[in-house]
Structure formats: C-alpha cells, structure tokens
C-alpha cells in the first residue's frame, strides 16, 4: 500500500508540482535562460498595457459573480424549495452549457449582436465585442456550475427549523432571511469563489468575443504564441495563479467552518405548494431556461445557415470542416480520442489513488502530502498548467519529454487539470463503504485486489461512472490547457473552433461547437441510461 502512495506522489510530482515549479523558475529568467530575479515582474507591473489586464480580469470576474449568484440562487430555490412544475426540464436546460465549450455562448452572441446581428440595435451602439460580450457569455457559462453548488446547498434543509420558526410567529420573509439564507451561506460563498475562478481563468470566451479588451488569459496567449516571449508568459501565468489560489484557499478555510447542517435526526423539507410563489418562479425559470436554450439554438441555427445574414437557406455545408480548417474532421476525432483516453485512464488512476489514500492506515506523512497534491489542481488554471507543461516537458534532458507533442501529453494534462473534483467524488463514495472490508478480507485470507474487484468497485460503480463522464465531457470541451499543447498531429476540436473563428469562418466554428455539444449530450444520455439500469440492478441490495 505504501508503495502505491509513493507512486501516486511521484505521478503528482511529475504531472503537477514539477511543471509548476519550472514555470515559476522560468518567470525569473530572461530569454537566454539566465536568472534575472524579479526583472520580468517589474517590467510587467510597470507596463500599463499589460498591467491593465489585471484590473480588467478582476472587473469582469466580480461583475459576473454579482450577476450569476442571485440568478442561480433563485433558480436553485425554485428547483429545491418550491412546487413548481416541470422541474426536471428546467434542471436539464440549465445544465446544457456544461456540455458545450465555453465559447459557444460567445459565438451565439456574435450572431445576435455582432456586426451582422439582427438584435444589434438592442445594444444602443455599444459593441458586443469587449466587456459586454465577455460578461454575458461568462454568465451563461458559469450559471450551471453555480447552480449545482446551490442546489446541493439548498437541498440540506431540516423542516423542523421551519416548523419551529412558524410556531414562533415568523413571517415567510423573515424565515427566508433567518433560516434559509444562513443555511445556504456556505454554498453561496463557495459558488461565488467557483464563478470568480472560472471567469478569471477562462480563455475561450475572451479570445472569441473579447475584442480589444485585454484580460490575463488572452495576455498569456499573446505573449507565448504571439510574441514567443515565454518568460513574460510565465510571469502573467503566475499572476493569474494568484487569484485562483486565493479563492481556493479561502474556500477551503470556509469549508472547515461549515458545521454539519443535517444531523441524523433532521427531517427532510417537503415544500408546500404556494400558487403565487410557484408561478412566479416558473416564469423566472422560463425566462432563464429559455435564454440558455435560445443561445444554444442560435448556434445550431447559425451552423446550418449558408451565409449569414445574406442567404439564410439551411445547409449542412458548414459541417464539412475540411473546407475551413486544414485538419477538418480529424480535429474532432482527436478530441474524441482525447476524451476517451482521459476518461478511461483518468478514472483508473484517480480511483485507485483515492482508494490508497482512504484505506492506508499508517504512513501519515505520505498520505498528507498526496492529499494536498490531489487538491492542488483545482487551484491551477488550465492555461497555467498548459504553459507549465510546455516548459517542463520541452526541457532538454527530461526523461518524460517523449510525450511532448503527442496525444499522451494532452491526456496527462487533462487528467491532471480535472483531478480534484474526480478525486473528491471517489473519496466520498469510498467513505460510504464500511471501513472494515479490508480487515474482513485479511481475516478470510482473500487478496485485497479480489475484494476491490468483487466488492469495492461494484458498490462504487455509480461514482466511477460519474467520474468518467466528468472527465470525458471536460476533456471534450476544454480550451484553456490544450491551446498550448496541441501539435500538428493532435489538433483538437476546441482549438479548431478558435482557428476557424479567427479566420472568419464563424459558421463553421459554430458547427464544430454544436458537434461537440451533440457528442457530449449523446455520451451523457448514454451515461444516464447506464446509471438507470445500474440503479435498478442495485435496488436489491441498496439500503432499503
């Protein structure tokens, strides 16, 4: 077992810690590789053009958070605490943006409000390119992430608290502010941090619809790809790391303060119908859900249009990617391959890693180190990780350098980038197993491996499938990390979208984005069917 943890730590070192370390050291070097101390940082902070992006990034991150939190809260409230109709539909609608690359809303917005957009007048002369477009796109992109956290937060309700408040004569409004809101406090704060981090580290949206509005993410891209100034890119990367890490640590500290809100004796809250409230919330969800759906529909329509806005006849021509991008459909196939490999290898590595950390009793030092490293990826933006990988794996003399410019580096990067959430999912599932299975196996002289395959994995199968689908969809839709790491052989669909958009083939870009959504949706539906079948089989032995 100990050997397993050592291997895990080694894996984490090579895939996460060392590359980040290389990045940091690169930011202290000049173009010749000599150590120049803080020279690059000084240059960065004294160049107003560069430095302005810091404020820009913070601005749009905070603005998006301020918009998304209330919207997502009301939506989550509607789903969890009301007797509104069609909850299933609204929940599905709200989660659509997760299946799409982040820049899908941006593309739709271009069609709606861009230079040829038919809703252009609504902006009163302002341009969609820039902060307006970025913020609106980010709102759509971050909404489902915040929603999921708030749904979980609002699901933990003890009806007896409300009964007590009612008996003490509190009005519904008072109950909301004194019982509901405080109960969801940590969920709201957590969601806030998540939105902030997502926005500040996102690259795709800013690239497509950012126009001249510079943010940290596009700065890194410009420095590295445009100017070939890797050192400055490293500096910006490190600057980008700071807010992400701060948000992450603040969230962790708050998590520790979160007292268990649901004791074993809590009685779950079953919402009572209230016509005005329910229909009001219904209307609200219709609007939000409609907008989300509308944005997706816009992209679908745009992808099927011959030449916007002149020839609106429907055609599948835009899907013949070979015409617009040299790699054509192979980019899509590469993405599929990446997603599949990431899902398979990632699930195995992460689950076994979580198992080792859960079940090893001694070796506290090793376990603490490994656990810390497992949480680290959540604080590292994809761009920064991709950049770190370039420096680390391209370095002469790196024994693992052979994976550079292959599919392998993309797979490793994706697994590392999405490690934390998967790890937490696995750990939660494993914690629900009886702690003594391994002891029983030892006493019955059955190998650990046998018990793992006969008992542990089958019982944790829902979580294993959840992890696989999470890894698959994210690898399918991610832009940030891969933008630096792809090679001529392994160009990916999301990168292809950016290229096609840059070249002006917006319709084809939309088509590729829609293809990605369709694939993710298809796999997700497969996952749902599989889980449902699994649930039925497990009914026999699940808790009654």
């Amino acid at each position, binding site marked *: 077992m100990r050997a397993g943890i050592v291997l895990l730590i080694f894996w984490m070192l090579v895939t996460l810690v060392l590359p980040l370390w290389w990045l940091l050291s690169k930011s202290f070097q000049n173009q010749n590789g000599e150590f120049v101390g803080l020279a690059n940082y000084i240059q960065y902070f004294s160049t107003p053009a560069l430095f302005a992006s810091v404020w820009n990034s913070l601005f749009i991150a905070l603005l998006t958070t301020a918009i998304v939190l209330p919207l997502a809260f009301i939506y989550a409230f509607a789903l969890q605490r009301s007797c509104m109709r069609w909850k299933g539909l609204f929940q599905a609608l709200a989660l659509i943006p997760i299946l799409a690359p982040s820049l899908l809303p941006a593309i739709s917005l271009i069609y709606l409000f861009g230079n040829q957009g038919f809703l252009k007048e609504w902006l009163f002369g302002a341009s969609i390119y820039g902060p307006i477009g970025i913020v609106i796109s980010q709102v759509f992109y971050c909404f489902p992430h915040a929603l999921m956290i708030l749904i979980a937060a609002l699901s933990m309700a003890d009806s007896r608290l409300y009964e007590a408040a009612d008996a003490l004569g509190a009005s519904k409004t008072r109950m909301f502010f004194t019982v509901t809101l405080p109960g969801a406090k940590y969920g709201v704060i957590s969601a806030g941090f998540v939105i902030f981090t997502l926005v500040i580290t996102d690259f795709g949206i800013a690239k497509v619809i950012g126009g001249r509005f510079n943010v940290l993410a596009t700065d890194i891209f410009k420095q590295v790809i445009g100017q070939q100034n890797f050192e400055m890119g490293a500096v910006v990367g490190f600057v980008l790391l700071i807010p992400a890490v701060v948000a992450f640590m603040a969230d962790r500290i708050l998590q520790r303060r979160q007292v268990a809100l649901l004791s074993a004796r809590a009685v779950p809250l079953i919402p009572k119908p209230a016509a005005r409230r329910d229909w009001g919330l219904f209307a609200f969800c219709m609007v939000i859900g409609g907008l989300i759906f509308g944005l997706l529909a816009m992209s679908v329509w745009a992808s099927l249009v011959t030449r916007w806005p002149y020839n609106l006849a429907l055609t599948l021509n835009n899907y013949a990617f070979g015409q617009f991008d040299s790699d054509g459909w192979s980019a899509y196939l590469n993405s599929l391959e990446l997603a599949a490999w990431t899902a398979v290898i990632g699930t195995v590595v992460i689950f076994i890693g979580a198992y080792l950390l859960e079940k090893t009793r001694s070796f506290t030092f090793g376990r603490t180190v490994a656990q810390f490293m497992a949480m680290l990826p959540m604080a590292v933006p994809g761009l920064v990780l991709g950049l770190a990988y370039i420096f680390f794996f391209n370095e002469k003399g790196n024994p693992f350098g052979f994976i550079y410019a292959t599919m392998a580096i993309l797979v490793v990067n994706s697994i590392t980038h999405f490690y934390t959430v998967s790890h937490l999912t696995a750990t939660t599932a494993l914690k629900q197993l009886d702690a003594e299975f391994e002891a029983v*196996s030892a006493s019955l*002289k059955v190998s650990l491996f046998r018990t793992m395959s006969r008992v542990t994995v089958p019982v944790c199968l829902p979580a294993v499938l959840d992890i696989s689908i999470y890894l698959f969809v994210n690898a399918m839709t991610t832009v940030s990390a891969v933008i630096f790491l792809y090679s001529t052989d392994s160009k990916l669909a999301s990168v292809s979208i950016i290229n096609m958009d840059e070249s002006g083939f917006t319709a084809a870009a939309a088509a590729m984005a829609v293809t990605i959504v369709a694939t993710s949706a298809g796999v997700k539906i497969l996952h749902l069917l599989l889980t449902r079948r699994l649930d039925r089989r497990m009914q026999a032995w699940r808790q009654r």
Partner: protein
Amino acid sequence: MPEQQHKADAPPYLRIERLKKQFGTFSALKDISLEIFPGEFVCFLGPSGCGKTTLLRAIAGLDIQTSGRIFQADREISNLPASQRDFGIVFQSYALFPNLTVSANVGYGLVSRGLPKVEINTRVEELLKLVGLPDSGPKYPAQLSGGMQQRVALARALALSPGLLLLDEPLSALDARVRAYLRIEIRRLHERLGVTTIMVTHDQEEALTMADRIVVMNNGVIEQVGTPVEVYRKPASAFVADFVGTTNFLPAVVVRPGCVRLGAVDLACDIDIQPGPGNKVTLAIRPEDVVVRHVQPTMPNCLRVRVADIEFLGSFCRVDLAIEGDAGKPALVADFSINVVRDLSITEGMDLLIALPPERIRVFPGAPQQP
C-alpha cells in the same frame, strides 16, 4: 470452577507479552501481558478509550503494536500481517458485503481457498443452519434485520474454522431485545464449537453473563483478570468496583490492622490493610450487601442511619441513607428487597440500624476519587 482449573492446566493458546501501543505521544496500551487458554471465552471490558479495541486489533494484526510480543498456539505472530494470522473477526457494523448474497458473503473466504463449488455450498449451508438462518442464503444483507446480519457475519467469520474468534462490540449496534437473544446465541455457538473467543464490550452485563474470564481495562492497563464472580465479589481496584455493578465509596482512616474509622464509627474489616494506621482509605461496599434485618447493636459494624430518599424499582428499592451525625448528607445507597421494605415498613425520614458485614467490605488505598 473446576472447569477453569482444567482449562488453566493446558498451555495458553494466546500469549501476550508486554504489549505497548503508541499513537504519537498518546499511549493506548501500556505494558499489557495476558494469557488466554484454548476454548476460553474472554471479554475485554472497559469504558471508551481504555484500549480494549486497540488490544483486539493488535492481536488481529490490523494495528500492529509498538513493542511487545504475541504468541498464538506457540507460534510467534507479533509481526505477521493480518492475512497471515489465524482468526475470524466480527465488527460492530457487521461489515457484510452489500452487493453479495448472504451465501456469497459466508462463502467469501472459502472461494479463495479453491475448494470445489459443491463443497463450498455444503459448508455454507451448514454454517447458515448453525447460526439459525437456513433459508437466508439467496437474500441480500440489506433485506435482513440487524440481528440476522450479525449472525451472517458470525457465520462468515467461522467459515474457515479459525483458531481464534474476535468479536469487536458485536452487540452494540443492536436494540436491547435482540442483544439479549444474540448473547445466548453467541454463547451457544461457543459451547458447540469450542473456539477460543475474545469479545470486546463496554457493557458489563454482557461480560458478566457471557465470559469465562473478564479482562477489565482502564486507560491502557489491565485492572483485573478474573472470572465474573471474582471480578464482581473481589474487585481489585476502586475502578473495577465502580465499573462492574454499583458500589458505595466511603472515605475512612486506618486505625489499626483490621479496623478503620468512618466518621465517628469504627468498622472492622476482613483484610490486612496496607498502608498503615493514620492513612486515608476508601471503603467499598455494594448496595445489596447492606444488612438491615435482625440487626442487633452488638453486631460488628453497626451504623445508625436515616432514610433520606426511597426509589421504587419494582422488585427492590434503592434507598439513600444518611449516616447519623454526618451533616445529614446521604452517604450510602442500599438496595433493599420489597420484602424487607414491607416487613420493616421503611419510609422516608425513618431511623434505621444497619450493619456492614466485615467480609463484604473492600478497602482501597487513598481517598475516594471525585466523580
């Protein structure tokens, strides 16, 4: 009693020598030495945190000790991992594999042995019949009650015919009636199979009814090892006297060997009192040992008391007694049967003459501990 001697004549099946277990700076087990004889049913009894589970897990090899040696059937197993030792184990949480049927659970260890299927099925059926669940084979654990699940866990632990059966608080998760039933079941299984068994429990009633010998533990040390009668009648320390059953603790001072002073009264005691005259000691006497019938002032250890409170408990009454001249605070609790209370018309506020038989008083050095 004779059976105990017979068992004690055989060489010990399990020998523990100077076992110590440290968790960082915390000493969970401090120098434990113990011998357990073949076929015995031993209970490790003690409050939470006393080290009884730690000791059990050290014997199983699940949490290896920091220092010390363990011998099982004359073979040193001190550093062997659990999978190489010979034991079956049952946990408080049953730890049944939820996705396997009862038969698959019980046969889990047998399958790895490579036995032919027919043999495994026969053995599984045999075991299920042994624990009283002959028809439960195809069911899943979630479909069984707690008591049934625990019996399946027992069957599973016994499947490989281990030399040692370890039970870690097996009855704590069950409700009172099921507990009482399973107590008898486990004892019956033990008598039928003759497997050396160690059971960890914090319930002294369980220990008293089930064990051949009880190992009373506190704070990582063994306070006393003895039969239930020995541990109850002759507790070796104030802790054992208090933990097993209830005891009155009275502060007294040594007058001379065989005599102590309680307040203003001199009491005779049976045993030679160490330390010497002038030292503080604690007198321990059980509530049921207080004599109130036919007490003459000429009898040894007579006391005048006043009844401060009577608690009706059905077949007996728990009576709070205040010793005369002792500021009226209730000092003694006595259990009087309903017969006695009726015959002597014992009521609140009444004056009584009681006797504390010298042979029933235990003396411990030092003043009584504050609770």
